């Protein structure tokens, strides 16, 4: 009898920027989870120095300009991390800042640069175009769904997931996906490779000192991401007692054994939206987009100088964006007590 094989009908030419290593990951997790009940509190400088490495694969939580770990992004930029491979599904402001700061080497693209309703920052778009054309930045093409399923595959401890989109699209050709004939139904399916990331950073509403984390609002890809990175840094609005976690375990979305570091950063998602706490800083975002209109890039450079390079830490940054008064306004905006 001839060997029965699953037929690969078509495959994309895109590169895989993260190694698919389920067995190695198992070994890693076996050891890592022994630290489940360690007090993981640290500061952002230490966490980034310890866990984000040049040339590593980074994936970040939140979505678009919602619940982004901006304190972490600022610190990555200040520490001048280089050659990062980036999971770039549903990325906006965080991606733009890292790209402009020269931290990015390769991307798995689902959605980049666009700020949805605010438009695309011109200077950053031009930079992306230049870097793609010159080959300075490697890019494989996906979409938000396939990127989410790639994270989910890794979180399931498997090397890929079959999905039902990407067929007939040019993105497929520039991805590392493969089209096969399903061994059960005979129909065509697309397989997307798992992303086992080196490090994931997620901003949450609250967690305890061990990293048991609770999140409100849309979860986007965070369940998959949090479980499939070798190192997970949680930045949190607030650290709460484990007893509080135990009162509502159904609210816990990331259990502590996935977590490596816990950093308390109140308002750590500003200028992005923290659902239930504070809304998008619309004026700040408009100012940022406007600064990216200057084709020479000077205005944008000034923006970065003022808010990132020129600040030592996130509390200093929060003063620059308008301090307590602004933060109070954003809380009121979130709770519909004031007009946009």
């Amino acid at each position, binding site marked *: 009898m001839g060997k029965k094989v699953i037929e690969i009908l078509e495959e994309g030419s895109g590169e895989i920027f993260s190694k698919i290593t389920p067995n190695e990951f198992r070994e890693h997790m076996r050891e890592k989870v022994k630290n489940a009940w360690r007090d993981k509190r640290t500061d952002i400088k230490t966490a980034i120095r310890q866990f984000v490495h040049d040339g590593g694969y980074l994936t970040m939580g*939140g*979505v*678009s*300009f*919602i*619940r982004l770990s901006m304190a972490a992004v600022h610190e990555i930029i200040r520490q001048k991390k280089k050659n990062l491979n980036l999971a770039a599904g*549903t990325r906006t402001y965080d991606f733009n800042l890292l790209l402009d700061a020269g931290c990015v080497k390769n991307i798995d*693209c*689902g*959605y*980049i*640069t*666009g700020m*949805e*309703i*605010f438009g*695309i920052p011109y200077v950053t*778009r031009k930079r*992306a*175009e230049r870097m*793609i*054309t010159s080959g300075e930045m490697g890019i494989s*093409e*996906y*979409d*938000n*769904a*396939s990127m*989410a*399923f790639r994270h*989910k595959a890794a979180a399931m401890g498997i090397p890929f997931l079959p*999905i*039902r*989109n*990407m*067929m*007939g*699209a*040019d*993105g497929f050709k520039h991805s590392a996906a493969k*089209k096969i004939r399903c061994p059960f139904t005979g129909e*065509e*399916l*697309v397989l997307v490779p798992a992303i086992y990331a080196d490090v994931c950073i997620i901003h949450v509403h609250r967690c305890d000192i061990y990293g048991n984390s609770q999140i*409100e*609002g*849309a*979860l*986007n*890809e*965070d*369940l998959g991401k949090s479980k499939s990175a070798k190192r997970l840094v949680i930045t949190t609005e607030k650290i709460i007692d484990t007893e509080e976690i135990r009162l509502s375990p159904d609210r816990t979305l990331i259990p502590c054994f996935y977590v490596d570091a816990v950093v308390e950063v109140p308002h750590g998602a500003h200028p992005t*939206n923290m*659902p239930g706490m504070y*809304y*998008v800083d*619309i004026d700040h975002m408009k100012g940022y987009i406007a600064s990216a209109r200057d084709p020479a890039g000077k205005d944008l450079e000034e923006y970065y100088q003022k808010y990132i390079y020129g600040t030592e830490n996130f509390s200093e940054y929060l003063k620059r964006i308008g301090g307590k008064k602004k933060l109070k306004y954003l809380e009121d905006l*979130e709770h*519909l007590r004031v007009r*946009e």
Partner: protein
Amino acid sequence: MKKKDYNIFELMAIVAAREIEDRAIIYIGTGIPMLAASLAQNMHAPNIVPVFEAGGIAPQMPTLPLSVGCSRTTYRAIRTCDMPEIFEMAQLGIAHYGFLGGAQVDQYGNLNSTVKGEYNAPKVRWPGSGGANAFGSLCWRTMIIINHEKRRLVEKVDFITTPGYIDGPGAREREGLPPGTGPYRVFTDKALLDFEEKTKRMRLIGLLPGVTLEDVIENTGFELLISDTLKKVPPPTREELKVLREKVDPHRIVLSRGDKET
């Protein structure tokens, strides 16, 4: 209402909202799709289920969301979840409509939101698919909103981000996409269009107020089919404009952008 009493975003949102039937489950992209869905929800379709890819299911949007993940997309929702769950629902066949924009569309409803020019040497690099590819692949019917310009309604898109009928009847199925899916309506600032059953080519079925047939043909980059029963789309009513302006987007977050283009 006379033409000068509304802008093109208002017009497109209103025309699109009319096509949304009550009780539909509808996947929504940023911008005008949000306006249209929210308007329909506040008018004739209170029981639609708006779904946002980041994880919001059936919210009652208090103001217009700025993003497909912002807290307005989970406000008084029935559930919040993660993105895999949202697209698993679409794979299961739960999503009646996907509602999208794009930078280019061709006669088969293929959408481009990735690049102008070559992929590896783009003249313009747009954000890319976002949720679009999965919306257009998995939802039963895809609704497309785009400005009616020759550079947007093109003979051939530079890049198929989201497949429409690809190159004609049967192509989606041959590629392995779920059967029975595909583009359904196109809403522009000049016309209402659908896809002719046999050829799967885009067909003009309605002219928006004040627009002539010549105007549409002149601004379309490919040969349009024209329906035998071409109709004139009624202008926005006072009620539609009132709800759109007072309830849907009271701060004119998206609507104001239509002022510039009108």
